[in-house]
């Protein structure tokens, strides 16, 4: 039996917003197996980004436990990468320098870092923009650079916060395929937040549905369809409907 790469036990997090207590997350239990592709869907504001920040070690939970490879998360780890919802590029660094930042402190030589960064940039179709500054990129291009930065150091667990949200459907489809290819090649674990249920069904082994107020896990749906999955196949459509219904039911009940 292999150990889970990530385990969450009764994780809770609240914020004080305008003097009110907002329960961003309550009682989150979750386990990710190594090499598993998990998608996280849920309405806006239900705590998806908060959950990723906790797992990445950028924030600490108020209650519960987060274990990465069996050890408690106390801060960011090299074993866990995060692609932020906003692109988070440093405006004063060139595109390539931004990507190289993610390799800082690794054992690679400066040359190797540059090479890896360039390769990652090629992957997202922006080979010619290595020396551009972030302000010279469109929103979708910046998001692709952020993706390249997230992928460059090949973490065993990669958290992706709506990485394709600003992309046109063609680019999005291409990068989804690319992400699957990388995942198949690396055999790492992916935790992808998306508001696109179809994307979740197409990519993931398991789709977790989060409910809002307080943020909690409402359902988990295993997707056992063989890959590559076809966007307009009946099976994909059926699963999509099932998950969307789950989201709707909840919205009505709330």
């Amino acid at each position, binding site marked *: 039996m292999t150990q889970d790469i990530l385990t969450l036990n009764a994780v809770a997090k609240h914020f004080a917003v305008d003097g009110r207590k907002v329960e961003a997350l309550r009682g989150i239990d979750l386990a990710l197996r190594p090499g598993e592709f998990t998608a996280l869907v849920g309405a806006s504001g239900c705590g998806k980004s908060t959950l990723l920040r906790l797992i990445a070690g950028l924030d600490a939970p108020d209650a519960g436990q987060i274990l990465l490879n069996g050890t408690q998360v106390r*801060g960011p780890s*090299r074993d866990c990468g995060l692609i932020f919802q906003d692109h*988070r590029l440093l405006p*004063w660094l060139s595109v390539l320098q931004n990507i190289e*930042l993610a390799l*800082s*402190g690794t054992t690679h030589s400066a040359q190797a870092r540059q090479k890896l960064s360039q390769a990652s940039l090629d992957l997202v179709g922006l080979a010619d923009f290595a020396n551009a500054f*972030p*302000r010279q990129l469109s929103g979708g291009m910046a998001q692709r650079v952020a993706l390249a930065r997230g992928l460059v150091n090949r973490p065993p667990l990669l958290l992706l916060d709506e990485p394709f949200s600003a992309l046109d459907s063609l680019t999005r489809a291409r990068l989804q395929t690319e992400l699957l290819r990388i995942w198949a090649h690396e055999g790492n674990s992916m935790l992808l937040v998306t508001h696109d249920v179809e994307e979740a069904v197409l990519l993931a082994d398991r789709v977790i549905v989060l409910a809002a107020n307080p943020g909690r896990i409402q359902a988990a749906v295993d997707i056992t369809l063989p890959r590559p999955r076809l966007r307009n196949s009946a099976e994909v459509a059926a699963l999509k409907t099932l998950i969307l219904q789950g989201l709707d039911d909840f919205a009505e009940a709330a």
Partner: protein
Amino acid sequence: MSARHWHDSRWGTLALGLAFPAALALVWQGAAAKGIIDSSVWASPWLVAKAVATQVRDPQFWSDLGASLWRDAQGTVLGILLGLGAGLALGRSALARDFFGPTLDAAKAVPIFTWVPLLAVWLGSGEEGKIAFITLVTALPVLFNTAEGVRSLEARHLELIRLYHLGRLTTFRRVVLPGAGPAILRGVHQAVLFGWLATIGAEFLFEAGNGMGTNINGFKELYALDFVVADMLAIGLVGIIFDLGFGRIEKFLLRWREDSSP
């Protein structure tokens, strides 16, 4: 549609900017020629022009200009380095801020020239005193601007330091220094301009030595006001060159945040 005026072009702007001083010089010259103003007290533009022509051929002028520039360079470089170091420490460390902040804010309220007697006593009114004064004048704007720039770094950018486990050097080179860059450069720009003012000021206020301030003083004693004005023009020109030159450097270093230029 944006209206374009003839004075939108570079040369147009320049011509417009020069029109006022040129007209002033003309009126002045006319008034002096007609004896309306006493041209021994109010050096006429013509006399000033002749004085300029004499000065540029006078080795003493060049040696004084060189002495001032060298003094300025030493004091300003020292001041910028000190201001930068102190500003970074103050911006990064809340402890340092709480400890030194109030004193520095109080020091800001003390007119800088009141330091002259103290510095003269401590360091003598020779070269050390002058350079120390220039250093003080240039360090302060760099310090305050740097501290402010570092303090205003955005949390969402600083978060990357933790996420990517950036070392001290990388944090400094890739995040803190460039992130605070606009503010630091603002401070350095001020320092470059103030440094030149402080250099001339120090040459007036401290014991005479060499330099443009001394040069001016010599002509003042002789009532050669045409030469005084010629020196003023030279000092002003150096200031303008510093300002424009540094503006270019600033623009290059901050090209990452510029709106896309043509």
